[in-house]
């Protein structure tokens, strides 16, 4: 790790103003991605702005939305009766991120801002049609994720909360990387009225994506059988030592069917 300056923001406005003033700043949430990269000397921000005092954690139901503060930990989401009741699939997703240490430090805001192509939350945001609230605007999930480790966020922008519309039926099934337990393929399926959204994480070379062919098939009939014969081209998928692009393409089909079956259960 290289030396850096630590600053703690008391409010979101404070964080934004520090982002504007400080030398080479970076926001610090749970630190579970940022700190390891700093330790390995792969990242070297000059200033860390800690968001833990900025009042950004908490979960509430607002009308037909579940609103989760950016600093809410995965463990809090997993254990929240509000989430468990309204979007059990989201609570279960959070309960299977990493290990207990990670779940008690890592935050939804940090995860979404980082947009790791193998992270779980991006699939939930995309399939549920969530909206990312920031210090300056509201960004629909569709527009927020902009490819591997890239988002629509500006340099001086802070995620404040994420609003998830409550679906009719939803499920997330993850095929974990045997080593890291991040998603090799994660499929989030959500049905709201007649609309079905299928979001795939872990597999795409550009990060999370919507599987429109599956969505069309499922909109006709919401049943795993509808997915038989729906192709997932391997050309746009990642390949690594754990899973080739072909294997990932195959898994997307299998895991999507399991997600639909789970959503129906």
């Amino acid at each position, binding site marked *: 790790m290289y030396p850096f300056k630590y600053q703690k923001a008391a409010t979101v406005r404070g964080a934004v103003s520090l982002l504007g003033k400080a030398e080479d700043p970076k926001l610090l949430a749970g630190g579970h991605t940022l700190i390891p990269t700093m330790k390995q000397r792969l990242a070297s921000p000059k200033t860390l702005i800690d968001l833990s005092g900025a009042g950004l954690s908490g979960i509430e139901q607002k009308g037909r939305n579940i609103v989760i503060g950016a600093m809410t930990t995965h463990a809090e989401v997993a254990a929240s009766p509000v989430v468990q009741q309204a979007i059990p699939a989201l609570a279960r997703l959070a309960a299977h991120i990493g290990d207990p240490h990670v779940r008690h430090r890592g935050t939804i805001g940090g995860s979404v801002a980082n947009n790791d192509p193998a992270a779980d939350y991006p699939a939930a945001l995309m399939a549920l049609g969530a909206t990312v609230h920031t210090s300056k605007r509201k960004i629909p999930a569709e527009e927020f994720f902009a490819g591997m480790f890239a988002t629509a966020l500006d340099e001086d922008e802070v995620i404040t909360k994420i609003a998830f519309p409550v679906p009719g039926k939803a499920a997330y099934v993850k095929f974990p990387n045997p080593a*890291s337990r991040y998603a090799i393929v994660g499929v989030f399926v959500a049905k709201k009225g007649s609309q079905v959204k299928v979001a795939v994480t872990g597999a795409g070379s550009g990060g999370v994506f919507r599987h429109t062919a599956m969505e069309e098939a499922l909109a006709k009939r919401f049943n795993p059988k509808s997915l038989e014969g729906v192709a997932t081209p391997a050309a746009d998928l990642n390949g690594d030592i754990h899973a080739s692009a072909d294997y990932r393409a195959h898994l997307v089909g299998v895991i999507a069917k399991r997600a639909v079956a789970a959503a129906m259960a």
Partner: protein
Amino acid sequence: MTVTALGAAVRRKEDHRFITGKGQYTDDINRPGQAQAYFLRSPHAHATIKGIDLSRAKGMPGVVAIYTGDDVAADKVGGLICGWMIHSKDGTPMRAGPHPILAQGKVRYVGDHVAVVIAETLSQAKDAAEAIVVDYGVLPANADTSKAQGAPEVHSEAPNNTVYDWHIGDKAATEAAFKAAKHVTTLEIVNNRLVPNAMEPRAAVGEYDAGNDALTLYTTSQNPHVARLVLSAFIGIAPEHKLRVIAPDVGGGFGSKIFIYAEETVCVWAARKCGRPVKWTADRTEEFLCVAHGRDHVTHAELATDAEGKITGLRVKTIANMGAYLSTFASSVPTYLYATLLSGQYAIPNIYAEVDAVYTNTAPVDAYRGAGRPEATFVVERLVEAAAREIGMDPAAFRRRNFVTKFPHQTPVIMMYDCGDYKASLVKAMEMADVKGFGKRRREAAKRGKLRGLGYSTYIEACGIAPSQAVGSLGAGVGLWESAEVRVNPVGTVEVLTGSHSHGQGHETTFAQLVSSRLGISIDNVSIVHGDTDKVQFGMGTYGSRSGAVGMSAISKALDKIEAKAKKVASHVLEAAEADIDFKDGKFTVKGTDKSVDFGTVALNAYIAHKFNPQELEPGLKEGSFYDPTNFTFPAGCHICEIEVDQETGVATIAKWTAVDDFGNVINPMIVEGQVHGGIAQGVGQALLEGAIYNKDGQLVTASFMDYTMPRADDLPSFDVGMTVTPCPSNPLGIKGCGEAGAIAAPAAVINALTDALGTEEVPMPATPQALWTVIQKQSRAAIAAE
């Protein structure tokens, strides 16, 4: 006084210290004035070093010193050694390249040590290392075992990258057996490379005492005396009496901490050179890159059988990857620790094995839990299972037909099995595993879309390493006895100084159990002292499941002497003839009377020396022993794995695990079970999860836990563990050893279960979901083509 008997499952005495964070590991040790070392490592798998520019780095804040291979050469510090001489078929000695502690002119794998920076803090050392400019001439590299012979030369001393081409057994007789065979089973086997990953990474602190011109090295070692011997006699750091090596609490070794490494050597050398204590602790990435790896064999294996299903011959050709340098015992692992076990539990009349050891641009490979024996068991048990299926025999029945049943049994590959009952462990395991009900479970699984398979592994290993003359005749550079000293204090408490070293095995408990049961004192009144060359006179350390069979035997011999002397003292205290004294349950009694005295009183009398003539009987109560075993020991048993494969994803889930092991007499069944559990976990890790992968440029792709899959609790079933006992006739306690069995037995059981489930012998290790899915895809393509 509560005596803890041999065979009692008492809790481990040392655990309170460990689980309350009171252990003292090497990294917990800080010496006054200590500086931090950081190693600049090669980013290239193979390159010449054309120049190293230290000018900017030397001026960086906090830098104490920076050393390179030139300084090592100028100080005439010797290179690391390989302590086992293997000769090739033509009688020539193995061809080993030099192994300098800092690279000289060339780097040979990613992580090779280029320079050491010693600074006030680790951050400063890292900053300075970043300012070193190394001019590399990058060379083509090879990491692939099967392509090593013919790849770019790693050491000019080893033409064709071949360290030795060794063989064992009777070639002509084996060829004849294959010619006459009714059936020949052939397998191509890759035994995957593993990274040991002890929980505690390696660490070292070197310190120089200028007043006495003496050095101390604190290090993560399984055998501190061997480390001192090598550092002293071969590397030339200091004479033995001027060098103290301390291996304090050590958090796991699995073999990887047997070896003498560059980093610890640099720390102790540099401490004198720069006049400051020098500390280094590996980070996890350094461990992945530079700790000695395990396994990495490519083998062509054949088994010959006759018309009655009797094995008539076994033939293997193995290429063993040594990595870029020969580590301390590397040469012995794929030879005398491997090919000598190729007879398995079977009476095989003809065996011939050829082993080529090759250099590649990878981390050195050496002994890792099981060391050669897992590789041998995998070959034998895969062959046996495949042969049974090919000739249409039940795999258990085929094994029974070929088991060794008469002891002692001389195999064609050196080993003389002293005792065992292989049928007993197989039968017991089959009952515990409900093999009879397997068909039903398989059909039930099929309904759920799962392919269920059952696999056996009836393994054998050679432990209790080893009779010194025998290993000496095979090329070992050391004797493999063990030493013990039992010191009885005047109050009757006991200190045992042992040359064995505990790094998780529980010696503080099991060794104390032996003393308690023999002297009739509480285990709380016994302390086990180990890991310090200034306290323990000499010892060979812990590996090869030798601490029970050899280390405890030495303690037992010393206790015999204590008992004999204490009887003499007791005879004076009790005023009776020595021959009339009985010793039992901690009490000396005059035969046929109620006159008795307890052990503590006798100890006190030994020291005050009032009741006997010190000119005839020396005061004090302290005895030592050097115990050299008469044979290896041969733990054996049967593991049965039942596994289910998800056809859609390729995910394999172990449904049931049964282990029945024969470890001879057992000191503490709880500790033994723990050893079995840990061993199986590592064996399952090898079979399903773990694999060190280098890419074609020699970069280690699996250099962190993000990509190297360590087994976790949820990868494993609950183990059903049982035992059979044939006491070992080759040592006084009847112990065989249990430390490696699980890791030796497990991989073959898993892969045999998978090949059973999938109906093909072509299942690679590790059988990851992707690998199994690929097998299933290939099968369904073949099925479609056949239609």
